[in-house]
């Protein structure tokens, strides 16, 4: 099976290089600029900062506890590890020698200043939709931040993925540069939202499933994908959502990381929410307008499920009561941790326990400065067996869905991911 996959990968790669080579592989270098580009238009720089927040740029381009935008974060992919580049205007190790033309080409075509193909971990399949005006603002912002010298480690990819020209073939299949046509039957906010969601926001990078070659399945737009081990839930109609998200609910959730009927943005989505908190209200409302339009409004209201009477082992109930129920108290009062009834949690409704297990292990720590939702990490408080029991208990008490299989495997996986 493994061998067949490798052979398939090599054959596919070969064909892609052959086809893609013609159209994409060769791109000339763009002459380096010798001095940093200084752009002093404060309004443009501020706009660029907002767009960078919507694009979530700093999440990938910042190492843990590192300087924002100085790069070096390891991004695990199915094909190996890619290190995010340094976006500060350092001449030697950042993008200080990049002209705006070179930056625009990277965003639109996925090619660096020297003409090398960039891996699509950098989501230029979305950024290609960004207007020249927005790219100018982003470029102005990046050139305005302090230059940090930070040498980025070489990528660790296996052959054939280590051979950059094959990316040209990937682009033939998965990079569509067609710009978005205005849909006059929809509101301005919807059109703006679609532009941000499809473009800089690159929501589909996580929320659309990917095929074996790492391309987004265009037939399953926003049907749910994966992000760093977490499930990125479907944004389209979904059995996991107990009730429809309205535009206002989405806007509040996206800009604060929390909504009282839907819960907290945890895992990688917490970073997105923190960034969208920096974006303009109009843009967040536009994003919410577009995303809300992906599902049909229903008249369902949030219903609290509580199958408390079910037979459960006494020790699991005791652990749930002492460890979880102080915050998840099923009353209307969410308390300082902003904990909801778990029957409202999307994570608990999902088909597999990936998100529930990860929230229990790692907690929700992202909003400690600023007063958002909080949950302590239980990785050292409870044992793996206890976490597995609690996970299953929550599932059967707070949903009417079938029990989860393989919770223990998921816990082991989540613990391994968390190793530095």
């Amino acid at each position, binding site marked *: 099976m493994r061998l067949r996959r490798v052979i398939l990968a090599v054959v596919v790669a070969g064909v892609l290089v052959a086809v893609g080579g013609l159209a994409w592989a060769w791109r000339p270098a763009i002459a380096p600029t010798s001095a940093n580009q200084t752009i002093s238009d404060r309004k443009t720089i501020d706009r660029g900062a907002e767009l960078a927040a919507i694009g979530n740029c700093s999440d990938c381009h910042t190492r843990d*506890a590192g300087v924002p935008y100085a790069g070096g974060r390891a991004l695990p992919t199915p094909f190996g590890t890619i290190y995010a580049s340094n976006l500060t205007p350092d001449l030697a190790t950042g993008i200080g020698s990049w002209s705006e033309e070179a930056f625009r080409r990277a965003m639109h075509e996925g090619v660096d200043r020297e003409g090398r193909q960039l891996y699509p971990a950098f989501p230029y399949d979305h950024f290609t939709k960004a207007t020249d005006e927005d790219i100018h603002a982003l470029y102005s912002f990046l050139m305005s931040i302090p230059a940090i010298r930070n040498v980025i480690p070489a990528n660790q990819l296996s052959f054939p993925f280590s051979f950059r020209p094959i990316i040209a073939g990937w682009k033939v299949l998965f990079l569509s540069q067609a710009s978005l046509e205005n849909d006059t039957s929809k509101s301005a906010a919807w059109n703006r939202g679609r532009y941000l969601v499809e473009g800089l926001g690159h929501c589909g990078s996580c929320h659309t499933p990917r095929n074996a070659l790492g391309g987004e399945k265009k037939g399953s737009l926003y049907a749910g994908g994966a992000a760093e081990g977490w499930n990125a839930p479907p944004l389209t109609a979904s059995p996991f959502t107990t009730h429809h998200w309205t535009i206002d609910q989405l806007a509040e959730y996206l800009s604060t990381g929390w909504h009282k009927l839907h819960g907290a943005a945890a895992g990688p989505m917490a970073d997105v929410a923190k960034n969208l908190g920096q974006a303009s209200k109009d843009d967040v409302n536009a994003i919410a307008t577009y995303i809300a339009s992906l599902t049909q409004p229903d008249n369902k209201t949030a219903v609290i499920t509580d199958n408390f009477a079910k037979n459960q082992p*006494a*020790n699991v*109930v*005791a*652990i749930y*009561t*002492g*460890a979880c129920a*102080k*915050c998840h108290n099923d009353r209307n009062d969410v*308390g*300082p*941790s902003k904990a909801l009834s778990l029957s409202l949690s999307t994570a608990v409704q999902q088909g597999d326990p990936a998100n529930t297990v990860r929230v229990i292990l790692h907690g929700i720590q992202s909003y*400690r400065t600023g007063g958002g939702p*909080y*949950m*302590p990490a239980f990785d*050292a*408080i*409870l*044992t793996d067996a*206890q976490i597995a029991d609690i996970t299953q208990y929550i599932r059967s008490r707070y949903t009417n869905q079938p029990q989860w299989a393989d919770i223990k495997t998921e816990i082991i996986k989540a613990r391994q991911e968390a190793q530095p």
Partner: protein
Amino acid sequence: MTISLKINGKSQDVDVDPSTPLLYVLRNDVGLHGPRFGCGLGQCGACTVHIDGRPTFSCILPIAAVGNREITTLEGLLEDGKPNKLQQAFIDEEAAQCGYCISGMVMRAQALLRTKPNPTDNEIRNYMRPNLCRCGTHTAIMRAIKRAAIA
């Protein structure tokens, strides 16, 4: 329900409801007042103890979940009845203002020094992040941890 615990190297039986948080048992039934009740929600760290050497919020650890894991409290760090090196460093640096968080701070810092005997400032800051101090004695706490690390 009678539950047997291993606290600071000794076995102890307690008779409590199994959902009772370890913190309450330590303070009310065992008489160890090192760990403090701050928020009761695992937010502040004043209740930090070690469970098998790892710093843990005891206010959200139900007694039923402790099992036969080793519990160490602030009192368990004493050596021959005297403050250990880290505890003495906190005293010498006058790291306490109101002092409410300090027991938890010492417990977390001790766990750090056990795995990283000579941590950098950044490593200390990152590791100590779960524990909060409202008085703002962070710089004195930093000095105390570094003093114990070098000493």
